[in-house]
């Protein structure tokens, strides 16, 4: 999430109280969660969406992430997707659909104690990849899975 952005904004407003600002910046994540990340959800490219939701666009491909989704989705409006990983210290799981006009679909923030294993259903405009970005111990990992869509779910 845009922790860095927030902190930057916060610091801008409180340059005079530098030390205090930094300390407060560290405790903002809780408050950040309350605000829906509009920039990330309106981003048109995958890199932008990942950067806006996770702070940076660079992800490391990982084989430890399992994406469960159908190979062929008959109805693009309802594509069941599950993401699970064996990694420890997972903070969030971000779900993106490559070919949608706004790729970011969902961000799941997982507090300590919640297992990195979530399922939902997404819409897919056309055949493409579903991308999962896992944030673990401050690092970003990603995996993708191709889904063939026979009837699109977006547009009419």
């Amino acid at each position, binding site marked *: 999430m845009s922790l860095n952005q927030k902190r930057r904004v916060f610091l801008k407003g409180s340059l005079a109280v530098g030390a205090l600002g930094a300390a407060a910046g560290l405790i903002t994540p809780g408050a950040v969660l309350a605000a829906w990340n509009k920039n990330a959800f309106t981003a048109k490219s995958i890199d932008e969406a990942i950067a806006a939701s996770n702070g940076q666009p660079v992800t490391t491909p990982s084989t430890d992430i399992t994406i469960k989704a159908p190979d062929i989705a008959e109805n693009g409006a309802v594509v*069941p997707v599950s993401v699970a990983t064996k990694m420890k210290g997972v903070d969030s799981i971000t779900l993106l659909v490559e070919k949608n006009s706004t790729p970011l679909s*969902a961000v799941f*923030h997982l507090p300590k104690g919640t297992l990195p294993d*979530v399922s939902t259903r997404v819409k897919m405009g056309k055949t493409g990849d579903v991308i999962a970005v896992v944030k673990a111990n401050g690092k970003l990992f990603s995996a993708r899975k191709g889904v063939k869509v026979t009837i699109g779910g*977006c547009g*009419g």
Partner: protein
Amino acid sequence: MAKTIKIRAKAKNGVTVVKALITHPMETGLRKNKKTGEMIPAHFIQEVVCKHNGKEVINCEWGGSVSKNPYLAFKFKGGKKDDAIELAWKDNKGNGDSISAKIR
């Protein structure tokens, strides 16, 4: 209240599995009304929060590309029978709903 949410939480071997279904149109804002040709305004859930005994166990941010009548399933450690589970959602029009249930 809570007509829009169905939730089921089950504890087994120290892990609680939560499954929820929410009734919601989830309009992306990109669709057209076929008869009038007008755009259907965006209307989708932005936030879903689930709490176990008052402690947050998941916090979701959703975009319009989550399917209509969204489904959410996740697991968390801990939780036992009869513990309180609470789930709430909020959409881009400021509407929302919440439900309280017990782990089975």
